[in-house]
């Protein structure tokens, strides 16, 4: 993949929706351990709504696709996840602007913007056992790959691998944000559902990486 166009982003979002649908039960199970048990269900509902909108109309730029995903997720995914994932996609959309095609650095910058938005909104830091623990290493890997001249596919592959590792690394952590933080010590020993979702979402963009 040289440049990434609106139709490439649509294909990527469809792959994300498929990954969420595939892992719905796993995510819900994880969330039942340390949250309120609706994460997989809610995220699947949100991405199903995104697909319906994409079937009706194809936005013209990568940024417009990301913004459509943002507004749809915010309106359809309940709890804190809707605003958090929505903010991630919205900030990514703002980052890419109205460019017709994205290169490796643009994708890395969009991921960085998404992470910054999630941190600003949720006030979580690395180590709090949240989606930030998957996003932070993903951004670092994406940036390093883009700086090294990697193309979009290479940047996404690096981000996905780092996100999956980051999500796995949340297992021994004690939650300090969100619903799981109410559990204190009992949150230890389970992967964070939000971080796991981020791993699946990014992994969907790179078949075979996750």
């Amino acid at each position, binding site marked *: 993949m040289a440049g990434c166009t609106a139709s490439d982003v649509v294909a990527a979002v469809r792959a994300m929706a498929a990954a969420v649908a595939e892992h719905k039960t796993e995510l819900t199970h994880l969330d039942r351990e340390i949250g309120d048990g609706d994460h997989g269900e809610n995220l699947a509902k949100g991405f199903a709504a995104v697909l319906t909108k994409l079937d009706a109309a194809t936005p013209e730029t990568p940024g417009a696709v990301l913004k459509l995903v943002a*507004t749809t997720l*915010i*309106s359809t995914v*309940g*709890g*804190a996840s*809707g*605003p*958090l994932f*929505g*903010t991630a996609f*919205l900030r990514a959309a703002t980052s890419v602007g109205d460019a017709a095609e994205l290169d490796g650095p643009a994708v890395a910058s969009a991921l960085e913007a998404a992470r910054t938005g999630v941190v600003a*909104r*949720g006030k979580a830091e690395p180590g709090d056992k949240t989606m930030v623990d998957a996003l932070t290493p993903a951004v670092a890997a994406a940036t390093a790959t883009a700086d090294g001249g990697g193309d979009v596919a290479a940047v996404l592959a690096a981000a996905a691998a780092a996100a999956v590792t980051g999500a796995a690394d949340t297992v021994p952590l004690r939650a300090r944000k969100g619903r799981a933080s109410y559990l204190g010590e009992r949150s230890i020993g389970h992967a964070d559902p939000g971080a796991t979702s981020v791993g699946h979402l990014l992994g969907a963009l790179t078949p075979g990486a996750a």
Partner: protein
Amino acid sequence: MTVGLVIVSHSAALAAGVRELAAQMAPEVTIAVAGGTDDGGVGTSFDLVTAALADADSGDGVVVLYDLGSALLTTETALEFSDPDAAGRITVVDAPLVEGAVAAAVAAQSGTDLASVATAARRAGASWDGSGETGTDPAPDTAGAVRRTATVADADGVHARPASLLAREAGRWPGATVRLGRPGESPVPVTDVLQLIGLGLRQGETVEFTAGGDGSEDAAATLARMIDAGLD
């Protein structure tokens, strides 16, 4: 000038209840609610919050009060998606929901500006914590102050509704600082409805207004007559 209010709650019933209470004291203030999810469940809805923000904004600004953390998250996201002009007129206040809503509604009813309504909401929590922390009001200047006594006529004492009527009436003399209390005890600002309620004044009690500034004679006399005549 009328600042609007938005109540964001995880529960539609809770949001409606807070509005009912606050509206009783501030009938002319627009209080929009965003309670529960789109399908009536427990949670907060981006769309309901966005709609409530639009409903409450008449151009003079909006104060938002919320119940739990993720209600704030939804509200901040709604603000990020809003038109920046409109978002600039919206202040989200971290305050106890019920006390903050009542205090903000009474302040908005008196026609004060956005910053003052937000301050009223923020200080609402302090009225109840027993520390006596009431914000920036200057200590009462008793030397040369106008004093008027009155006797509480209302059977139920100075509860919420009479207190809000006194607070609103006191707003007619913006140049005067009027306080109310029991003679010999520390008085509270008449414009602070929560502190008035907190005095727990009963029927038949003698109360004293202490006033200074422009129009203080008129203000103290008028308010004392209201207490004597009964407000319910």
